[in-house]
């Protein structure tokens, strides 16, 4: 495995940060979701987090070489997150710039190449219909292979996903 970059954490914002050899700045964020979900999940001590990451390129006109240390760093961060077997990570791809399929594929490849030995990946498709179009975005739920409460996760998170969206963001 390629050597990851050093990650630091900004205490004021909660950002996990790293800078690549080519000068790109990555910010990774976790949002704790359990308190806003079904209380049953809390009873079983499940810790559910929403994950996101983004990059700032201070020299956007300059072509960058493929840097495998970036994947290695993000994989390392995700592995560290799963120190607790009761944790669940949700990653929904940002679709606003039309690049959600690329993000989905990237995450899928990371899982296949580096994480499948330790983590189970449950792909997520979210279909949103409006008057003219059906819009789909993608994501995944990650859990450890030895996650102890798969039945609870199925009943209280996966089957209630639509209701969760309303509870979390529908106010």
């Amino acid at each position, binding site marked *: 495995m390629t050597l990851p970059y050093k990650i630091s*954490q*900004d205490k*004021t*914002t*909660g*950002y*996990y940060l790293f800078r690549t050899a080519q000068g790109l*700045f990555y*910010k990774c*964020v*976790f*949002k*704790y979701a359990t308190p806003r979900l079904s209380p049953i999940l809390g009873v079983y001590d499940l*810790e559910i*987090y929403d994950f*996101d990451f*983004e*990059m*700032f*390129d*201070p020299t956007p006109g300059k072509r960058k070489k493929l840097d495998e240390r970036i994947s290695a760093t993000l994989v390392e*961060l995700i592995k*560290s*997150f799963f*120190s607790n077997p009761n*944790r669940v990570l949700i990653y*929904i791809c*940002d*679709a*606003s*710039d039309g690049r959600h399929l690329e993000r989905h594929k990237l995450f899928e490849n990371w899982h296949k190449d580096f994480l499948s030995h330790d983590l189970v990946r*449950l*792909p*997520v*498709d*979210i*279909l*949103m*219909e*409006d*008057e003219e179009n059906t819009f789909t*975005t993608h994501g995944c*739920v990650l859990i450890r292979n030895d996650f102890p409460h798969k039945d609870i996760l199925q009943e209280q998170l*996966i089957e209630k*996903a*639509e*209701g969760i*969206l*309303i509870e*979390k*963001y*529908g106010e």
Partner: protein
Amino acid sequence: MKIKVTIKPKSKAAQAFKKYMAEKDAFRKAVKSGDAFTYAKQRPIKFDAPI
């Protein structure tokens, strides 16, 4: 196993999902523009630190 969520138009879930995606979009734009710390201060947003 694949998780499929279908959101009906004009439903509360549709509004909720749009809000969720708008938050992701705002975060992406803030980071892309190099303004992520201002974004976090203005909201104010404090992300969690599980590691």
